[in-house]
């Protein structure tokens, strides 16, 4: 027999300010199965929790209803309370009389009271039918896959590896480093990006716990939390890295020049190349698309000159399989293609209108100009440089609705760099707002202003070429006047977007993307590094635009979550997953294709009915490690054989009866 206790929470004035909680408790006491019903100012507080524990003991309760907030907020809290009281934690049912009632019906307290009581009646009806549940245990492969070798992936990999777990780090480019490796200096300290990034690249490559794959991509991921299997495609490098010493003769002598991706088109590389001198691994790959040998069958210069015979045109791509227990997505960002959208800035036809990332390569000592600011068209040192912020950001008409968050700061940095490197230079920054939330950020921006950057509040409406100069037309909305600047170089702060190919990784991992294509975190505030797919975590700009300090912090957070997961030899899964009544299952398997998590598959049982001989029969089996308890199979099952534990047909029908009849 159920002996149910109802606990009505005031939630301060959130509930108590709208409905009469003691009155509700008194009415709830009359519901079937309820033996005690009380109210409390804050049920989630220590006194509230103790009240439940004492009532369980005093009244020998075996079911509990908490009428308070959303189960998303406190169901876990009250499950723990039940465990402390010596009950199975799944014998609690919540009635959400805050979000679903008093918050939305504040102006109508009487109707709110009636609704609150209905919700409690529903919860009590279900509580009376709750069954004790317990999760199953699954083993954990104590290794982690990190996808992306930029600063986010490097940090996550190093932290997990330092915690004593093996890490498989996969980077699709020929080198580690990501976007951060392309930067010159970093705000607000102006320390050199390479000085703080390349040591991490080297550490990752030499860490005994890290297995590194560069020029490789994750092809598929199967399995579930604690037990994933990743297929990793190692693209053909056409250079045997076992033999190669990285001496550099091949790329010195290669006759083919190609615009360098790493230099964002500001400089060239060869067809056999390392992206930049500090690349890790410091050994080349051949770009098959541009290589003269692959295009014409002639050349072979690199092969002839290689002192160790490492060049191998016959090399083929390979696929490796790695078993891991957790995955960190750290796929980073790319920049909005402004040239396709902003005709008023010339659609990319003016060589001296460049992006912030291109500017980074121009001021980088290891870049194509050796760190001298020279404009692309004629190599002249620009005397007037105009920066345009929010190109594609905060622009729903042509770009993205969101703020890209890093541009205000890096533009201030660029402005300072121009003023420092080009004596007498004039710098104008067109902005909508200056957003400098971060430690030392506002001070940094003020420094740029103090040193001479002219900030003009307004949008740029047009950039056009007039002879050898660029004319930037815009508005100064503080003066209320149109302005025109003759510029030698224009730098656009283009929006941050999810990296090219991010959508494919989203599909591969079975996680969600938000409306802008960024990876969706499980909760925007409380679970920022987790996803809704167990065992898959997020680090860095793949989740939202963010700067280096925040990326490193988030990567460390993801690593801590991974280390926590991998610290246990086995996991207890949620018991609220599908279960099959094999006696009812007809083996039609209609439920298999509807499962979004691939958690169902056909199985065979042997059964003996009465005195007939034993026979084999097909039924569906649930993989409780994969099942997320969504209930799609439950709805699809014609014979009612599949049910979600904690949401059985009987329980749900009892709720409906209590609510509607």
């Amino acid at each position, binding site marked *: 027999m159920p002996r149910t206790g109802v606990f009505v929470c005031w939630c301060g004035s959130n509930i108590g300010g709208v409905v009469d909680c003691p009155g509700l408790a008194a009415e709830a006491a009359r519901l079937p199965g309820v033996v005690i019903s009380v109210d409390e100012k804050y049920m989630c507080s220590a006194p509230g929790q103790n009240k439940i524990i004492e009532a369980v003991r005093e009244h020998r309760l075996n079911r509990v209803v908490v009428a308070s907030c959303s189960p998303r907020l406190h169901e876990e809290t009250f499950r723990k309370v039940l465990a402390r009281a010596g009950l199975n934690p799944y014998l609690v049912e919540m009635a959400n009389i805050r979000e679903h009632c008093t918050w939305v019906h504040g102006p109508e307290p009487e109707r709110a009271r009636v609704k609150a009581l209905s919700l409690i009646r529903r919860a009590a009806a279900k509580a009376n039918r709750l069954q004790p549940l317990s999760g199953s245990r699954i083993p954990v492969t104590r290794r982690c896959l990190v996808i992306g070798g930029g600063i986010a992936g490097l940090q996550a990999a190093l932290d997990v590896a330092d915690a004593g777990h093996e890490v498989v780090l996969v980077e699709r480019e020929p080198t580690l480093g990501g976007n951060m490796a392309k930067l010159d200096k970093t705000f607000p300290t102006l320390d050199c990006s390479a000085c703080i990034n390349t040591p991490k690249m080297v550490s990752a490559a030499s860490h005994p716990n890290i297995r590194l794959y560069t020029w490789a991509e994750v092809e598929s991921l199967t399995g579930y939390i604690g037990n994933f299997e990743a297929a990793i495609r190692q693209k053909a490098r056409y250079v045997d890295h076992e033999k190669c010493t990285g001496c550099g003769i091949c790329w010195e002598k290669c006759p083919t020049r190609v615009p360098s991706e790493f230099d964002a088109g500001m400089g060239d590389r060869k067809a056999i190349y390392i992206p930049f001198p500090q690349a890790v691994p410091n050994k080349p790959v051949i770009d098959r698309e541009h290589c003269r040998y692959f295009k014409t069958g002639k050349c072979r210069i690199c092969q002839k000159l290689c002192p160790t015979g490492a060049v191998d045109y016959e090399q083929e791509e390979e696929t490796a399989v790695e078993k891991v227990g957790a995955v960190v997505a750290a796929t980073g960002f790319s920049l909005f293609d402004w040239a396709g959208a*902003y005709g*008023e800035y010339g*659609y990319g036809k003016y060589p001296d209108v460049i992006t912030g990332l291109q500017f980074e390569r121009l001021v980088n000592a290891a870049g194509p100009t050796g760190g001298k600011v020279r404009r692309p068209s004629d190599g002249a040192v620009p005397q007037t440089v105009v920066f345009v912020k929010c190109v594609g950001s905060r622009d729903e008409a042509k770009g993205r609705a969101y703020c890209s968050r890093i541009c205000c700061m890096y533009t201030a940095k660029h402005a300072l760099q121009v003023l420092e490197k080009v004596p007498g230079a004039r710098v104008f920054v067109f902005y909508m707002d200056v957003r400098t939330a971060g430690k030392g950020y506002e001070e940094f921006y003020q420094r740029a202003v103090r040193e001479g950057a002219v900030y003009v509040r307004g949008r740029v409406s047009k950039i*056009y070429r*007039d002879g050898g100069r660029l004319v930037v037309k815009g508005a100064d909305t503080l003066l209320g006047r149109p302005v025109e600047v003759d510029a030698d170089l224009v730098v656009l702060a283009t929006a941050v977007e999810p990296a090219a190919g991010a959508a494919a990784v989203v599909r591969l991992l079975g996680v969600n993307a938000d409306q802008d294509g960024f990876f969706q975190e499980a909760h925007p505030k409380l679970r920022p590094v987790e996803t809704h797919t167990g065992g898959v975590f997020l680090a860095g700009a793949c989740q939202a635009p963010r700067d280096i300090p925040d990326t490193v912090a988030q990567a460390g957070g993801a690593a801590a979550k991974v280390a926590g997961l991998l610290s246990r030899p086995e996991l207890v899964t949620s018991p609220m997953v599908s279960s099959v009544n094999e006696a009812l299952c007809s083996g039609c398997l209609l439920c298999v294709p509807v499962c979004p998590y691939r958690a169902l598959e056909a199985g065979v049982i042997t059964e003996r009915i009465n005195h007939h001989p034993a026979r084999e029969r097909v039924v569906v089996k649930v993989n409780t490690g994969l099942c997320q308890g969504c209930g799609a199979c439950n709805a699809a099952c014609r014979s009612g054989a599949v049910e979600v534990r904690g949401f059985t047909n009987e329980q749900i029908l009892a709720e409906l009866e209590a609510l509607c009849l």
Partner: protein
Amino acid sequence: MNYTYYAGCSLHATGREFDLSARAVCGRLGIGLAEIPDWNCCGASPAHSTSHLLAVALSARNLALAEAQGAGDIVVPCAACYQRLAVARKELGEDPGLREQVARITGRDYAGRAGVRSLLEVLGGLDTEHLKAQVTRPLGGLKAACYYGCLLVRPPAVTGFDDPEDPRSMDDLVRLAGAEPVPWGYKTECCGAAHGVANEPVTLKLVRDILEVARRAGADCLVCACPLCQNNLDARQEHVNRVFGTDFGLPVLYFTQLLGWAFGLSDRDLGLDKLFVKFRPGV
């Protein structure tokens, strides 16, 4: 190819040469133009800045008349008229309530069958061989700055032809006529015609800027597709010169006049005699 023709008020007055040259060029190209009988004002600037409903209703009446005439899509030379008619067409198509209300006001319903196209779009869409075949007096590399103005290709959701930031259809036509379109940055800048009476100094500055940028780009003439722009840029040059101490003498002609000249049509047929700054290619 036949079209319903909406000339609008400017083409009967200050922009008469646009009407003349449009008809002459279309005639040469085998395009039939059937003028809408009893057409009325399109509702440009005065109406739509005071009453949205009045502006839509004025254009809607023209659209309904044209549709009833059944002579095909409406072709409009004037950029302002074109924009008003196109906006009205879009709004009536998207809002059945408005369509009903406007039909009660005008006494005529417009079902949206007759489309609205600018003359530039129509001529720009013709087969280039057909156009080239008419050119008997190529312009010998005359440098022309094609000036589209603010209304013709904007907003793109209404106009739906050419690029709103870097339009090229007029440049292509001018090139077919043997002239050389110059790249310049002021193709779609505002000429200030709307402020010519209320705030003349603003207008004079905008006109000066356009002439200045065109001249620096090496243009021998400006080519445009709007009677307000043409009148503003042409008739005010002397005033601009007086105020700013400049010496502009850039002919500003309609693209139809330039095409017609290349087709060998007479100055008189094209209304070239009506320009303030005379157009004398090769002189």
